[in-house]
Every structure is written in structure tokens, then in C-alpha cells.
């Protein structure tokens, strides 16, 4: 279980408060107006941003002293999820070992992950030789080999077209199904949220609210969300 205990997160002059918990293996959307602090929340959980006060626990462990790379989570950012000078296979390999020196068995794991996301035989290609959708698949293959309990998505598919984005979200849902992975996903698009999450955290008016059912939140939005959804 992910627990944010009376957290205050500062970003410049802006402060976001969060006091909530997310059940293990839940899929949760983070929705709210632009600039409300969705990314700030995700950055705090991922360890890129210090808390002004409060604590974040994963299964009872305080994450405070854990640097981003040691936390039990994998992140996909809006962009720059791949190193352009590394091949697809190397980009996945750094998910197992940052120095990229793998054992025979680990190589097999990487190969299997690429197969799983539909990139069989493309391991030697550089990101520039792959389409936008294929690049996203490489990043997802890396998430697979990282085997983390939590997966944070900061709109990594925003640059893809609507059909491709839906395809990627289905792939994410498919990849984490039955793995006990907890998914937190920022979304600007209510359809995306409905597509693969059952719950949603509303971030608005300086606070991240506890998760509630996605459909219910979107069907009966509070005023701050209603203005945004239009």
C-alpha cells in the first residue's frame, strides 16, 4: 500500500498537500486542471522533489532516505525516456543494471521483454530508427525488466496520436495485469482515465484528494474539475 501521510510538497511559491493512500495493485488516474500539481505529486513520490513535511510510505517503509533509483518504483516521463545513443536492447538493459553489463540469463530476460512488447528482432535499433509508438514500447519493456512494485506514468504517450495512445494504454494494462503492480497515471483525457483505471485522484485547489471511483468522479465532477472538463 502507498501511503502519503500529511504531505506538503513545495514547488516554488506553490504548495500541494496530500493525505491519502492507494491500495496495492490498484490502477489510479491522477486528474485535475493544468498547473494544479499533478506532476509535482508524482515527482514527490518518485523522489525528485523533497517534502516540506509529512512522509511517504510504501508497505510501511518510509521512502524519505531512498534516492529515486532505489525506490520500489519505475517512472515514465513525458519525454526523454530513452537514451538516443543506446540501442533498444541497451535501453532495456539499463533497467536491470545501470552499467548495462548483463549476464547470459539477464540478456534472455531483456529479449523476452522486447518480445512481450512486440519488438522481436528490433533490439539492435537506435531510438531514431524506431517510430514513436515503438519508442514507447522500448520504454515499457524496460519498465517490465525493472520489476518494480509501483509504476508512475507522467503522460508518456501524450505525443502519440489518439489511436496509438489507446493502444499503448491497453498494452500497459495488459503488461501489469496479474503482476500486483500498482499504477499511478497522470491523465489529461477523461477517456484515458476511464480506459484503464478504476480509481482517480483529483488534484485541484492545492490538494491531492483521496482516490475515488473514476467513473463516479468523472460523471459527477466537483466544480474545479467541471470547469476544466468543460
Amino acid at each position: 500500500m502507498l501511503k502519503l501521510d500529511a504531505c506538503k510538497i513545495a514547488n516554488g511559491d506553490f504548495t500541494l498537500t496530500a493525505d491519502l493512500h492507494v491500495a496495492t495493485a490498484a490502477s489510479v488516474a491522477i486528474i485535475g486542471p493544468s498547473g494544479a500539481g499533478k506532476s509535482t505529486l508524482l515527482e514527490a513520490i518518485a523522489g525528485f522533489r523533497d517534502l516540506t513535511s509529512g512522509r511517504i510510505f510504501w508497505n510501511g517503509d518510509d521512502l524519505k532516505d531512498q534516492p529515486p533509483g532505489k525506490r520500489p518504483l519505475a517512472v515514465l516521463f513525458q519525454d526523454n525516456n530513452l537514451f538516443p545513443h543506446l540501442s533498444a536492447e541497451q535501453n532495456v538493459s539499463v533497467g536491470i543494471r545501470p552499467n548495462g553489463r548483463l549476464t547470459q540469463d539477464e540478456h534472455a530476460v531483456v529479449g523476452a521483454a522486447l518480445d512481450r512488447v512486440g519488438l522481436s528482432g528490433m533490439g539492435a535499433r537506435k531510438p531514431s530508427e524506431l517510430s514513436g509508438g515503438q519508442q514507447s514500447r522500448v520504454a515499457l519493456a524496460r519498465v517490465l525488466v525493472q520489476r518494480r512494485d509501483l509504476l508512475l506514468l507522467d503522460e508518456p504517450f501524450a505525443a502519440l496520436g489518439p489511436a496509438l495512445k489507446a493502444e499503448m494504454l491497453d498494452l500497459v494494462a495488459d503488461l501489469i495485469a496479474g503482476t500486483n503492480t500498482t499504477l499511478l497515471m497522470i491523465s489529461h483525457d477523461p477517456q484515458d482515465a476511464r480506459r484503464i483505471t478504476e480509481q482517480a485522484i483529483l488534484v485541484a485547489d492545492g490538494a491531492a484528494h483521496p482516490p475515488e471511483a473514476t467513473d463516479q468522479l468523472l460523471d459527477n465532477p466537483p466544480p474545479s474539475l467541471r470547469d476544466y472538463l468543460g
Partner: protein
Amino acid sequence: MAERAQPVSSIPGIGTAACVAALILGTLAAVALRAETGGGFAPSDWAALRFTLTQAVLSAVISAGLAIPVARALSRRRFPGRRALITLLGAPFILPVIVAILGLLQVFGRAGWISDILGLLGLPPIRIYGLHGVVLAHVFFNLPLATRLVLQGWQEIPAERFRLAAQLDCSGMAMFRLIEWPMLKRIVPSVLAVIFAICLTSFAVALTLGGGPRATTIELAIYQAFTYDFDLGRAALLSALQLALTAAAALAALRFARGDGFGAGLDRAIRRWDGGAPVVDAFWIIAAAAFLLLPLASVVISGMSGFFELPTQVFRAALTSVTVAAASTAILLVLALPMAAAVATGRHGIVELAGILGLAASPLVIGTGLFILIRPLVNPTAVALPVTALVNAVMALPFALRILVPAARDTVVRYNRLALSLDMKGLVFFTRVLLPRMRAQIGFAAGLAAALSMGDLGVIALFADTQVATLPLQIYRLMGAYQMQAAAGGALLLLLLSMGSFWILDRGGRWHAEA
């Protein structure tokens, strides 16, 4: 506030910066302590100061003055070979001074082409030695730099302004006053300051074309105090004077500098509707190209005839030069890469200061200081080559940092979160992400360092005895012995080596580079 954990430590960079600062400041302290103020400045020292300032002012004014019409012509004309010509304007930066001087002598010298033509008309030959020779060579080196800087100013004028001016039917003087004069007022002072600062530390030009009581720069006077009189106290005193001068000029140049490096964005299309006389523009472009190309062509032509009969000592010197340049490039990268990484992670202060220090000290001042420092320990001539490689690297450092820092900063900004989320940091991040992402810039910086070191005729002259020579020094000695054929062959070899090493390293950095 945002937590800013960094994937790469700034400690190695701060360490190397401290070493560089210690080296430069240490040699300067040695110079200051050793300087003998008892006797004060001799009349010849004042003459050297006067000459240094005079030639630097003249060189700066003439270079900038000529650069304005050339840049104006280049900015408003499109013709085949324009890009090549602009690229060529960057070449003198890495052109060995001794090669250029040989070429200038062959064109403008007593027995040169121009004098031959004058002779046919019954006129006396030109005299190239002395003030006008020194200024001529400095204009040869700095006119291209000035042209590039002024051209950049022209190209930064938004195309809309020209459109508006054309709409208002501005042309000629009106156009100049409305648009071009304000730009020149902004750019030209910085061009003057930069060239003035560069010419203050002129050594090789003064060594070959100057000399004598009436044409000695301070840098040359340091060398003479060393080699002719072996008067360390006087060399140190002159070094202190030179240091005060260069530090002041470097500060002034930095104040004027507008933060942008050489070579960025030189080919945006600007359309102009005020024709001007094409003949005038053509004259300036052709004259500038001829001024730059004729001496080089002359070196190539005269060098080829002697190229295959070069004395073995030239090849030995060439081998020495290649070794020194390779070592110097390696030292530069060892210093510059951690420093660039440290600046990229936000530790500017001391690192950037150390990078700039190299601009304030001249090679001969550092050389003098090093000589004073190491003489109690070892025979300075025994370490002539390592010292040359080291000083060359320190001198190339400010340029290398200007090339490397933006790329390092960009890489860290772009990939630090991804790297941190993958627990990739320290040496792994440095070797697996930072170096590969900066390959093109590393290649460019290494190429510059190699070419500058290959062509350097400075510290080596101070330290070397007759047993050791780099190629530029060997060429200088051949010229002194009037073996002009061998000198020309050696100059061609040096030209090929320095341009070749630049080309290989720069290309190597961009080979198969991904976008």
C-alpha cells in the same frame, strides 16, 4: 525548493579546476616573487610596452575596419562558395602562426610576389619586417575572426527590419543609419577588445617579423631576457607587466563579450532590397579571399617542391610535434571534461573562474613561472616537451570549456531524471551517457586542442635546447638559417598535420552520431 540530486558528482571537476587554478596562480606567484623591481624598467622595456600597445591598437582597428565592408558584402550577397568562404574564415584560428608567416613573407616579403610586381614597375620592394609586418600578420589572423563576429551581428538583425526599411524605401546612408549603425555600435567595441587582447600576447609573429629595439613586444622581451641574457629577474618583471596588461585586456574583452561562441548560426537567409553596388561588394569579397588564400596557396606551392627532400630532422620534429599534440589533447580532455560536468551540475564559481584564468595569463608568462618553479628540481630543458604539452592544454582550456559546457548542461538537464530513476550515476553516468552524448563537442574541442598545440611556437622556444624541437620551432630555425626550401616543405607538413588532426578528431566525433 526542488531537490536537485545530480547523476554525476562535481567533485572531480572542482578538483581539476583547483589544479588548473593552482598551476596558473602558482606560476604567477613565482613570477611576482622573482621579479626584480630594484632596477625598475629600462628604457627598452618602456619601448616594448609602447610597441606592444601600438601594434595591438593598430591591428585591432585595421582588422575591425576592414571586417565591416567584408561582412556587409557577405551578409547581403549570395554566391557559390559563400559557405566555403565563411568556413574558411574559421581556419586561421587553428592555422600554425609560422606557416602563415612563411606564406606572408612569400607574398609580401622582400623577394615576394608583390615586390616582384613592384620591381617590374620600377618601384622598390616592400619592407615587411618591423611594425607593419607585425600588424600585417595580425590583420591576417584577426580579419577573419572580426569578419565572422561582425557578420554574426548582421545576421542577428531580424529580417523584418530590412523588410520594414525596404517598405519605407530606405537605402544607402539612410539604411545604414537606421539599422546597421546601431548594430555596429554594439558589436564593434567587443571585436576591438577581443583582437586587442589577442594581439597583446603576440609572440611568434613578433619573433619572426619584429625584433630589434623598435619592434619588440613584451612577450618577445621576456623571451629575450631569458635566452640572450638569461636574466630571470628581468624576465619575471616583464612577465608581471605583461600579466597586468593581459588581465586588464581580458577583463575588458569579457565585459564586452556577448556570451556567444564562434561559428553559431552564420547562414540564415536575409533578403535585402537595397541593392547597393554589386561591384563594391565583389571587390571586398575578392580582396579578402585573396588576402587569406594567397599566402596559404604560396606555402602549399613552394612546400611541394621541397616536400620529398625534407631533412630527417624535420620528420623527427614532426614526430615530436604529433606526440606533444596528442599528449596536450589528452591533458586537455582530462581537465576539461570533469570541469564541464561540474559546471553542468550547477557548480559554476571556481570551475568557470579557473577556465577563464587561462585567458589572463600568456604562454610565456606561465612558461617563465614554470621555469622558475621547476629549475630547483630538474633541468628545465629535460622537461621541455611535457611542459609544452601542459601549457598548450591550459591555453586551450577556455575555448574547450565554451564548446563542452553547453553540451554537458543540455545532457544533464535532459537525462538526469531518467538516469536517477534507473539508479545510474557517477562514473556509469559519465561514461555511458555524458561522454556519448557529448561526442561531437568532444571531437571538436579535441581537434582544436590538437591543432593549436601542433602549431604552437611559444613555450617550446623558451625551454628547448638545440637537441629538441617541435616542428614549428624547427621551421623557425630553418628560416633563421636561410634554408627556405626546407622551411617551406616543413611548413606544408605542419599545415597538413594541424589541419589533418583537427579534421580527423572533429569528424571522428560526428562519425555515426545519432541526432
